[in-house]
């Protein structure tokens, strides 16, 4: 009868221990950032600015970093410096989102060009297939055209290095 007084407390404590175990297990899982991760890069009707190469043909059998940018996007300008510092080491490809040829050209003239090739999606419709959240966004795609990582928002040098080393391991 004495214990009966503490029955609610006892039940509650059992429930909490149980919930604690659940949440502890959950902690071991790292967040997946996109449903597209580990998927094949979707086939897109996206062409390059210079000679209308298709993006899927271009990235075949290469480790590429696809950076979606726009000349009207301010974070992209800051990110641009980061990309330039890695452009020797890696194949970086640009995908201009909702933009115009003149603006892209003046943008690259002003800030320099870190891209091996620039593709465009002026309507923005094809990028939907990439699950685009906003610009900038950066995809890391391996030789089998598999998306290894997707970074949302401007990327900095530390993050860039961390992602690359994470992918290699």
């Amino acid at each position, binding site marked *: 009868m004495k214990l009966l*007084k*503490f029955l*609610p*407390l006892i039940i*509650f*404590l059992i429930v*909490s221990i149980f919930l604690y175990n659940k949440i502890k297990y959950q902690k071991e899982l790292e967040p997946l950032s996109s449903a597209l991760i580990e998927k094949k890069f979707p086939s897109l009707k996206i062409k390059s600015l210079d000679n209308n190469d298709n993006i899927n043909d271009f990235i075949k059998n290469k480790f590429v970093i696809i950076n979606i940018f726009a000349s009207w996007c301010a974070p992209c300008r800051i990110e641009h410096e980061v990309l330039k510092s890695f452009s020797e080491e890696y194949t970086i490809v640009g995908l201009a989102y909702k933009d115009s040829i003149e603006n892209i050209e003046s943008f690259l003239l002003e800030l320099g060009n870190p891209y091996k090739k620039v593709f465009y999606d002026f309507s923005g419709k094809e990028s939907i297939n990439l699950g685009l*959240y906003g610009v900038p966004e950066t995809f890391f795609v391996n030789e089998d055209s598999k998306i290894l990582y997707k970074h*949302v928002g*401007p990327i900095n040098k530390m993050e860039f290095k961390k992602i690359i080393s994470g992918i290699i391991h």
Partner: protein
Amino acid sequence: MLPEIGNIFLIISFLLFSAQLALSFKFNSLDLKYSFFDVIKRLSFFSYILVLTSFFILIINYVSSDFSVLNVYNNTHTNKPLIYKITGTWGNHEGSLLMWLSVLSLYGLLFLIFIKNLPKRFAFKVMATLALVNLGFVGFTVFTSNPFIRTFPIPSEGLGLNPVLQDPGLAFHPPLLYLGYVGLTIPFSFSIAALLQGEVTREWAKWVKPWILISWIFLTLGITLGSWWAYYELGWGGWWFWDPVENISLLPWLLTTALLHSVKVTEKREGLKSWTILLSILAFSLTLLGTFIVRSGLLTSVHAFASDPARGIFILTFLVIVTAGSLLLYGIKLEKIENKKNIYLVSREGGLLLNNIFLCASAITILLGTIWPLVIEATTGQDISVGAPYFKIVFLPLIFPAIFLSGVSINLNWKVTNLDYLYSRFWKLMIVFIFLVSIYYIIYDVPVLILLGVAATIWMLLSVIGDFFSKLHDKSKGFKINLNKTKKIRLSIYGMYFAHIGVAVFILGVSLSEGMKTYYQGVESLNSKIHVENFTITFFKLDKFKKENWFSETGTFLVKKNDNEFKMKAERRVYLDTGMPSTEAAIKRNFFSHLYIVMGQEQPIGSGKRIIRVYHNPHIIFIWLGAIIMAFGGVVSLIDYRKSFFRKL
């Protein structure tokens, strides 16, 4: 600058609450001096103002689209209409938490306004409990979910908001619900203070009653709005999906409903004291548990925020400290507050007790079904889900007796045990009841479940009418009814009548719409005709065009019923900024019933054919109407309680 100010305000309020709590502990045993009480009062007043100001600052950041704040960048967009910029503030984890906190502060301020009516010793303990709860939530916000964190470089455009959330229903659903949830903190604090004092009095019940009622009104409205939103936005044609988060929101409502009834017994008969205290602790703990489950991502739900285990651990720790502490205190003090009085089964308090048991049992079954997947997963490793069939089969048998008992107990007097009285009172009601139910059955010949629902409605209404007439009875004039007596009935009684009528209307809506709804699904090309009930629907026209920030496909349907002809437009949107599609159903309502058309995407592509779904939900409006009548009843009672609010001791 502004975000830093907001941040600093939050941190200062954290320190102030800590200081208040420490002072309360230290001086609790000493005799209270007026000046010290006043210091504590000012401290908490100041902290509440700081919290409210920081929330206001966050709203300003959202309105001015200050993307240097990470939270703003993540959740809004310059192209959004002003109203959704504002509501975007609480459309995400951090912002909604700050709103939670601000609502808590609003209640705190409201409490401070009415504090002069309470004995100082008691009010002091309530303030200390409130400070503890505030401390937990401010700490949670500042340390795990700070909305004022800056980002660099400053983005020029935000990431936008989920289009599903761009909706007036959703904009106001969380604030209302939070007003309900958070309001339960006050009854909780009153209970803890009463436990600390070691006595639960009838006066106490009077003080706490209005606060319970306020929460209950907001919970009712919040859940109703959420259900309405799901019904017309999600395009699934249903109004309650037994989704874990919906269930979690229903639990405090059921317990608060039980609490409203048991506190009445405490007030009138000094009964059910420990039960009332336990209920208010549990109702509050369940809101914390709900927060925990939603914010930690433990359960799969359409409402899930992006989850973060660190947050889960924090809330769980807080939940354990608060709830375990309260229940421990409850166990220790139980003997002191326990009422030695007997409760007779055949009396109003007896009926209310039984009714309470059924309400709590239904809450337990829902809780069990909601967390059962976690239990099974932990014990067997199997993933399972518990869906609507479970909830329907366990909830209905428990809620019907509760309804029946509620009808019985309004017609009983306090304290009476005489079976002859019961008999004399009920035979007339029973005859009318059976007569009406049979008539209904003979005319409409409906399935058993609808009949049961209609019977429950009739019973509920009759019980209210029966009690009303018995109050009008003039004993001196035999069986005459004296209409002058209507003015003598207290406003709170009318409030109770409305609330019960609301329940009746709600049940009617549920049983009629669930029992008689019809559904059609088929592939239709242009100009094909669909027959549903006595409607003839023609797929008349399809338009494609670009709107502000989405691409729209709008199907126009010509609907004919008898000689009445009208057009309906169902839309499929694809939002340009995120590429996310969204289905906007066409709803045609006459006052009671809804005709609902949903248009799918073209399939196979190029065929010009689309899947069309048509739902006809007769009388469905009663569901929400009933809930609104319930809340209205609550407001009417609250107006009556206002007297005890303002009355000086």
